Every structure is written in C-alpha cells, then in structure tokens.
C-alpha cells in the first residue's frame, strides 16, 4: 500500500481522508469483499411481507434476493437464482405466491424454497434428488425489532452484537408505536446519485452543511413560522451532539426544532393538527413516562448503521439504503416508516412532513445530490489534491457537536480497519 487511506492523528488534531478511496475502481472491488461481504447489510422490514406467501425482490450487496414469508409465517431470504441454470426465478417487485416457477425450463419451488417440480425429471440419473436443489438461502438472516439484515460472510457475529449502540436508537424509533410495531409505508423513492456511496454516508449526518446547502429549505421553514435563528456558538438552530455507537455506527442526536409527527407540533402542521399531536404525546407520556417521552418526541436522530443504512428520525422517519453501481455512482432506495396504528390524518401529516425536506422532489435532498455530484466532479483532481479534511471537533475533549465530525470519523475509522485488515474496533 503506497499511501494510507486515512491519516488519523488525534494528538495533532489531524484527520485526513485519501481522496483516492472515493474515485478508484480497485477500492470499490475491495469494498465488495471486505465491507459488504463482512457486515450485516439491511435487507428490508418485516412489515413489507405481512402475510404468509408475501414476497419482495431486492438487490442487496450486489445479489438478487427474494424475501419471503413462507406458508408457516417464517421469514426467509433466498438468493433469487434457479438451481438449474441460474435464472432469476422471481421477476416481480412484490406479490404473494405459494410457488415460484422459473420461466426458462419450468423448475418450480414452493415458498419454503423446496424444489417441488422438475419437468421431465425422468431424464436425470438416479443420483439426482430434488431435495439437493432447494433455493439457496442467504448465509445469515437476522432481525432486530423488525429491521432485517443479511450477512454474506463467514461466521458472522450475532446481529444484536453487531448493532451495538445503534440498538438504542432503533428502540427510540420503535417506541413511537404504542404496540411497538412499525410499518414501511407504500411508495418507494429510487434514484441515482452520480457520486461515491460513502459521500452519502457522510452527508446523511453531516450537520455542518445545513446552512450552506439548505438555506432555501430553512427559509421555507422560517416563512412557515419555525425559528431557524442560530443560538450563540452553534451552527444549527438547536443543540445536538455527534456520537460513536461502536462498530462504525454513529448518530447525530439533536434537540428538535423542525417538528415531529410523534410528537412535536409546528405551524406547518396546521392548527387542526394540534389536538391529535397532543394526544399522541399524552399516550407517549402515559406509556413511557415523562422523561422517555421527551427523549422520543423532542429529539431528532440521524443514524448511520454501518455501512449503508441510514435512518433519519426527525420530521418523519426515513429508511434509506444505497448501493454503489460504480465507484462514482450509487442507487438510493428510501422509504417512510410509521407506527401501524397511526390515524389517517396522522399518516398524511407524516408523509407531508417527509416531503418538505426529503427525497428526489423535496426542498432539500436535491441540493444534497447536487453537492455530492460536485464533490465527485472535484475529486477528479485527486492525484493533485490528495486529502480531504475531516478534523472538526478534534481540538476538544468530551462531547462533540453535531456540526463537529466525530461521527464521520467513526465511519471512516471502521471502514479503514476493515479495508486494511486491522483491528476493526
């Protein structure tokens, strides 16, 4: 290795990233094996397959995956490839099936993956046994409170251990439902960004960029009656901290200023929404106690679960994952998540609140896309300009602000450890 990927020198208050890691296709190849095949990767949410026989097809960690609730209600994830010649056996995005028939030669599997029918089976030799040709399940499949992950590596640690401190932040999302059940809302946002995938990791919880990139969003919020004034010494309208959660996961944990469907009213929601939001709040207090209710309802959390899951628990709850289709391009998939018992009006408010900021048509996300694409454009100079600067906050001990960069460094340290084979602490 000629030059290090990162320069991490806390005593010198220096943290630099080698820009090569954002532009070199060889790095992406390494990432496939050393990152995506060695980490738990988000596959989907159990609410997306509520009934027996329900299925979804996804592309996860570069593989076509078929997520199924089988005839007994068990959740399974198969590699979506026929054991005969490799054809993808399911071509639909979603649906309900008791069996999957390959279009090529008609091999048919039930929703437990068992090969049940082979046309002209008698032409195979005596050693041929259909039982040897079930659909291949992913090597490991686990869930935490409905969030389901796959792992393609050898001997993975249990998901709950892997998630480490991120569990606490998933719990805060789940606590928003009286029955502790959330659901992915209908409608998927799928769009490409012409930038390296790791730039979206950074951007998803980089609060330092809010004012420069999103001034028109802040102006809209201000016009609606939300105070966006910066308190002395802060670069965000409300205080917040960046935290490392272990295993490369990190979060910005902020006092809310821009409204929460559960449950902090802002003028944008309209006067008519006040009683319902107060009722949601009262339910939280009754169920969780005053302190926990405040924790749930009055803070916003942008969580990165290493390497490529982002949950923004703020003006709505967004679940966002992204996959590098090339070193300078990613496919982003985003969903809205909400409590299953949410009323029609509350759900509508959540979705409206989501769209003010987020998504390819939001008032803010397109400017993030623009920023990341301009970064990628600028990185063509990497041979001359070599290093990016990520040292905000290193000059202080103790708590780090959301506009510092401890959380970004947390991601990069883990990434570097996995890529270089060092201790991935």
């Amino acid at each position, binding site marked *: 290795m000629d030059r290090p990927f990162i320069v991490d020198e806390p005593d010198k208050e220096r943290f630099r990233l080698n820009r090569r890691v954002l532009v070199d296709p060889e790095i992406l190849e390494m990432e496939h094996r050393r990152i995506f095949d060695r980490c738990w990767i988000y596959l989907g949410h159990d609410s997306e397959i509520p009934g027996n026989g329900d299925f979804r097809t996804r592309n996860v960690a570069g593989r076509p995956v078929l997520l199924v609730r089988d005839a007994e209600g068990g959740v399974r994830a198969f590699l979506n490839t026929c054991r005969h010649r490799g054809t993808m056996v399911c071509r639909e*995005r979603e649906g309900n099936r008791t069996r999957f028939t390959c279009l090529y030669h008609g091999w048919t599997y039930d929703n437990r993956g068992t090969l049940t029918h082979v046309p002209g089976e008698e032409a195979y030799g005596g050693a041929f046994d259909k039982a040897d040709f079930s659909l291949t399940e992913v090597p490991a499949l686990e869930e935490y409170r409905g969030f389901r992950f796959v792992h393609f590596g050898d001997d993975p640690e249990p998901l709950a251990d892997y998630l480490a401190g991120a569990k606490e932040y998933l719990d805060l999302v789940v606590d928003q439902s009286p029955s502790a059940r959330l659901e992915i*809302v*209908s*409608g*998927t*946002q*799928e*769009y*490409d*960004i*012409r930038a390296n995938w790791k730039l979206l990791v950074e951007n998803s919880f980089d609060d330092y960029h809010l004012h420069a*990139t999103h*001034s*028109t*969003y802040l*102006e*809209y919020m201000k*016009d*609606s009656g939300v105070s966006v004034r910066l308190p002395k010494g802060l670069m965000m309208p409300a205080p917040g901290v960046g935290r490392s959660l272990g295993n490369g996961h990190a979060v910005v944990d902020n006092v809310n200023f821009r409204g929460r469907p559960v449950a902090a009213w802002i003028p944008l929601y309209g006067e008519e929404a006040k009683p319902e939001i107060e009722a949601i709040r009262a339910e939280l207090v009754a169920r969780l106690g005053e302190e926990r209710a405040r924790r749930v309802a009055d803070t916003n959390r942008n969580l990165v679960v290493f390497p490529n899951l982002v949950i923004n628990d703020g003006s709505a709850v967004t679940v966002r994952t992204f996959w590098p289709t090339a070193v300078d391009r990613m*496919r982003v998939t985003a*969903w*809205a998540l909400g409590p299953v018992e949410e009323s*029609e009006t509350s*759900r*509508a408010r959540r*979705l*409206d609140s*989501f*769209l*003010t900021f987020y*998504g*390819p*048509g939001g*008032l803010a*996300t*397109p*400017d993030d*896309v*623009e*920023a990341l694409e301009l970064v990628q454009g600028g990185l063509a100079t990497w041979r001359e300009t070599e290093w990016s600067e990520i040292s905000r906050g290193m000059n202080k001990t103790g708590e780090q602000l959301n506009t510092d960069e401890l959380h970004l460094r947390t991601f990069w340290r883990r990434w570097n450890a996995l890529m270089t084979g060092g201790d991935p602490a």
Partner: protein
Amino acid sequence: MTAAPIDAVRREDVEALFFEEAALLDAWRLDDWLGLLTDDARYLVPPNDVPDGDPRDTLFTIADDIRRIRGRVKRLNSAEAHAESPRSRTRRMVSNVRIVERAGDELVAEANFIVYRFRRDERIGEYVGRYRYRLRSTGEGLRIAERRAVLDCEELGGLGSVSFIL
C-alpha cells in the same frame, strides 16, 4: 368575467392552457406560472412503483399543496436552490390531450408528456409520462386545481432528482 360553463370548454381550450404552461415552465417564468393555478392547487408526482397512489397514505416524490408550491417557486427563484443553479434547460412536448371527465365547474384532462432536461453540458434524460389535470372554470378563465405528473419509468434511476417543475 364570469366563469364559462364547464360543458363549453373545448379540447383546444385545454391544449392552449397546457401549451401556455409548458412555455412558461421552459422559460422559468415561475411567478407567471403560479398565476395559472387556483388558490387551493396541488402538484403531485407519485412514486414510480405506485403511480395511482394517494399522497395521504403513500410516499410520493412530490405532493405539494399551494403553500409548498409557492415555497417551491420562491426557492427555485433563488440562486441558493443549488440543484437548479445553474438552472436546467428543459423542453416539454405535450400531446394526446383528452378531456376525460366533467363535473360541476371542473373537468379532468389528460395528456402525454416528454420533458427533455439538460444540465451542465450533459443531457440528463427524458422524463416521459402522462399528466392528469383537474381544471376549474373561473372568472379569470380555465385554471389548474391539480396537476399530477405520472412518470412511466419504473424508478427515477438515472433521472436523479425532480428538482424542477415537472
């Protein structure tokens, strides 16, 4: 001027409105475009996987009420709307216009569209789909109460953002 009876509205009246709107949007005359909308107008771009969805229970790409439409225009008029600064160049083709329903003082009209979008010396792509409009006959003429732009592609994919008015 009194509102024309909805039954008197002809297809060419609807076409004239659509073509005028396309010209205003391609010219980025967004404040003039607002003048074509009713005070309770909505602008919708459904998600690619649920093209006939309802924004109250489905996550859309865009689901603006009149307040957010006006906020969107204010934003797009600013040099700080980075995704459209510099602005995309667009060229809209609107065709196959049909009036499909009439009720009260409103009608529903549909059309096909292709919006070509160019930016930073690169052709980004063609936004292809259908419009479904709810138009209201008012004292100022035919006005847009709801415009729904339904994209045909199965995901936005390489089209990226919908940062302009589609």
